[in-house]
């Protein structure tokens, strides 16, 4: 039999529909792949037994004619989504063996659509990081290598690595400043962050509430559309959820982009841009042109303020969101001589360096006397960035940029330099600040043979155009490279 793990999600769903194989067979193949790929450290918790049970139940449902959108597909869930009865860590020590009694809306939607869950995927602690090295459960290794272990990007490093290594057909991820798109770029996978409010945040451990948005990492643009259609949808339990129907995004894939106006923002040509990245971008522009799109130079003048503003807003919200991890009701608790001591010991032991750093930054920028200079100013920048995009939409329908300023780098290389690490988000944070949809599509290899992605940004609520442009880019780029299987 063919290797079922090499299939796309779309192909696997078709195969099961045709009766070529069962979910049980498909799931078993992926469980085996996950076991083989343990070295990648993509999972924090595996749920193989549960997955096999779910697969059997799915096959039974299919036999009775009940077929959901993700029926029988073995997938991974980023360990930021709370899963009922399955330990949820957010990549942190502080949650201890916290096992939710509830299911996040996103994973509940997918369960309702017939998903098989292989396990909970590794991530940077509380989704704070760009290399998956801040996880309490150790770094995730990128299946792509360059003579040494590379990071898969972050924070959704486990999701990206698992999909790239064919351990699962697709995975959920979350994106606060680029955490879906940058790892997708680093691993040759597709990752989309939809419009803020498309996916409910209910039951997803919060990092920065006004920026956090769930989305999928998948093997193809079409697969990402299938997954997002399942994940998205209005949820009255999240006040920031958008009350709108989920459109036919799968149908948008493969549609012609003839006449589509693609904006190229000049501010994204940053100083010291690696030649590989510039060449990829230029190539992308040519491909879109060849596919019939009209290329429009645009300006997003406040781009350079986006990253600093992001690193004020996100830590500010995080410092408050993470206050609940105090050792009182669940998770880790280190008893001290009094209440304050217990708080301090618990949070010192429970949080890693990066999380502590951001809590301190966030606390600082919200403090009396600093609020106006930092938080308020950052919010003003945010308004300007929203306005930049509004202006841009007058002359274009989608925007094409690189996803990240480099290919995957070696494990350990940037971990001691937070600012270098933060620069990974330079092309992605703007869409989080503006709440816009953005997708990363693998578009080529650098000179070392490592994958690179291009980003397409669309108007709020216009994921359809984003999918259309992404699938055109995917077709034109013809990216078929896979990492050599060096593990097991």
């Amino acid at each position: 039999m063919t290797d079922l793990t090499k299939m796309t999600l779309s192909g696997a769903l078709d195969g099961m529909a045709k009766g070529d194989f069962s979910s049980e067979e498909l799931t078993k193949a992926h469980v085996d792949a996950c076991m083989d790929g343990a070295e990648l450290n993509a999972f924090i918790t595996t749920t193989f037994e549960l997955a096999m049970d779910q697969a059997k139940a799915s096959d039974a449902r299919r036999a009775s004619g009940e077929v959901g959108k993700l029926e029988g597909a073995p997938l991974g869930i980023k360990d930021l989504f709370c899963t009922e009865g399955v330990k949820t860590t957010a990549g942190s020590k502080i949650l201890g063996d916290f096992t939710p009694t509830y299911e996040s809306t996103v994973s509940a939607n997918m369960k309702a659509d017939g998903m098989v869950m292989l396990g909970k995927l590794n991530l940077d602690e509380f989704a704070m990081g760009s290399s998956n090295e801040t996880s309490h459960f150790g770094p995730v290794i990128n299946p792509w290598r360059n003579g040494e272990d590379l990071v898969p990007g972050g924070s959704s490093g486990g999701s990206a690595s698992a999909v790239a290594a064919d351990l699962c057909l697709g995975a959920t991820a979350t994106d606060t400043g680029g955490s879906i798109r940058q790892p997708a770029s680093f691993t040759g996978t597709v990752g989309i962050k939809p419009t803020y409010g498309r996916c409910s945040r209910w039951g997803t451990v919060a990092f920065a509430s006004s920026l956090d948005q769930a989305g999928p990492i998948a093997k193809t643009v079409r697969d990402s559309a299938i997954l997002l259609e399942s994940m998205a949808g209005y949820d009255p339990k999240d006040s920031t959820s958008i009350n709108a129907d989920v459109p036919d995004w799968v149908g948008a894939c493969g549609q012609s982009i003839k006449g589509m106006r693609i904006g190229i923002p000049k501010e994204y040509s940053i100083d010291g841009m690696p030649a590989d990245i510039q060449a990829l971008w230029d190539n992308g522009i040519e491909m879109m042109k060849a596919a019939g799109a009209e290329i429009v130079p645009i300006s997003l003048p406040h781009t350079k303020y986006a990253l600093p503003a992001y690193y004020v807003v996100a830590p500010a919200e995080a410092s408050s969101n993470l206050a609940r991890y105090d050792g009182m009701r669940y998770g880790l608790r280190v008893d001290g001589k009094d209440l304050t001591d217990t708080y301090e010991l618990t949070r010192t032991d429970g949080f890693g360096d990066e999380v502590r750093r951001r809590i301190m930054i966030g606390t600082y920028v919200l403090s009396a006397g600093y609020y106006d200079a930092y938080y308020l100013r950052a919010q003003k920048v945010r308004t300007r960035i929203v306005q930049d995009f509004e202006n841009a939409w007058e002359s274009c329908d989608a925007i094409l940029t690189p996803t990240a300023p480099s290919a995957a780098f070696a494990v350990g290389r940037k971990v001691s330099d937070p600012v270098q690490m933060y620069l990974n988000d330079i092309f992605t944070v703007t869409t989080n600040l503006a709440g816009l949809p953005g997708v990363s599509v693998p578009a080529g290899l650098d000179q070392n043979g490592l994958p690179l992605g291009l980003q397409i940004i669309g108007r709020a609520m216009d994921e359809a155009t984003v999918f259309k442009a992404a699938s055109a880019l995917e077709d034109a780029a013809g990216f078929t490279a896979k990492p050599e299987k060096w593990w097991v």
Partner: protein
Amino acid sequence: MFIAPRIADKKDWITTDTGDWEIIIGLEVHAQVASESKLFSGSATDYGSAPNTQVSLVDAGMPGMLPVVNEFCIEQAVKTGFGLNAKINLFSRFDRKNYFYVDLPQGYQISQFEHPIVGEGEIEILPIDGDGNVGEPVNVGIERLHLEQDAGKSVHDLSPDETYVDLNRCGVALMEIVSKPDMRSPEEASAYVEKLRGIVRALGTCDGDMEKGNLRADVNVSVRRPGGELGTRCEIKNVNSMRFIRQAINFEARRHIDILEAGGEIDQETRLFDSVKGETRTMRSKEDAHDYRYFPDPDLLPIKLEQSFVDRIKAELPEMPDVRKARFMSDYGLPEYDARILTADKTKADFYEIVTKGRDSKIASNWTMGELFGALNKAGLELEDSPVSADALGGLIDRILDDTISGKIAKDVFEKMFAGEGTADEIIERDGLKQVTDMGAIEAMVDKVIADNSGQAAAAKENPKLLGFFVGQVMKASQGKANPQAVNKILREKLGL
């Protein structure tokens, strides 16, 4: 900065060897919103349930849980805003107030800092002194009303070295009503709280139960030379009765004056009121004040009210205490004092209107305020728990008005009714208290009393004051049941007065 132009009435000045002082008072009242469920979760708000039985995942601050605002609480706040004659803000926003404590699971309280739902307003109060004298009306400015979540309850006395936490109250909606520093005496402060209580109860937006802590006040007190520069204020937290408010202010003002007169300075601090000792003590100094790091809650959208929504609430407002008071004075001809007491609280006003229906309004008010409220007060009961219903009290008054019993006998009957012995008619019947109105019988009693006291009867012509003695004797002989007017009339005839 606070501006406090009004100077206290001289009677409210505190005079010492060094001269006169006046007290400047502002209040922050926390009123629990009357609602079935909490401000941001679906949990119930019932008081007195077993600990931690009314706690949702949101209330407990579980990972990934999100608040969703309870629209009914918004409506209640707007309603209260109208009751305070205040500006309703069509745009308001929830902010996070960040601090760590065991009874605050999220690590922040969701409140409204920069943009409260209700802005400035004003209410009129009528302070009453200890002797029941109604003072001049005082206008008290309202600074703002905002919505916020209550915290849980820390229980420190169940174990010598552990604190227990009950999260039932955690997340319950509160309205914080902030006054301007417009009060100048303890009586004005308690009159203000009483007025607020009357307003929220009339509106049904808070039950006003101070004993349960559903209405409690933080009292800001400072002193100054009359009309002089404002002094440094201290905030006394969570004072939960009218009497304690007055006590706390009196104590605190004295404390300030003593310090200032000894050449000291007032430290701006937060203090606690010890109701047992009747004194305040330091809770935390200004140096220990929290930096709450307020910022807009990113989990919640700003509240944008439609004008039509606000208009609808306004159109549906019930009769407010001030309006009802005016009506009681004009329709029932009640004096201001009676009208004020009766309309300060909706339950009292409703009760009175049942009692007075079809009856003399002044007699009804005397019996309601004098006998019933007095008896309730003595028994430590609320009107809601009165053993005598409004209809029953009306029944008693009917028997006075139709001369079945005298006012004096009625008081005995009332006592028995209050003790639960039955209705007025049942007790009158059982005890044979029906007034003797048979003129023949009264005449016989009068004849007997005159015969028994012939000396006084002869003297009475010279000294008409003796009539009182004879009336007393006849009433005694009738065991109080003789109709006093009839006794009087017959005695005057027989004694030739």
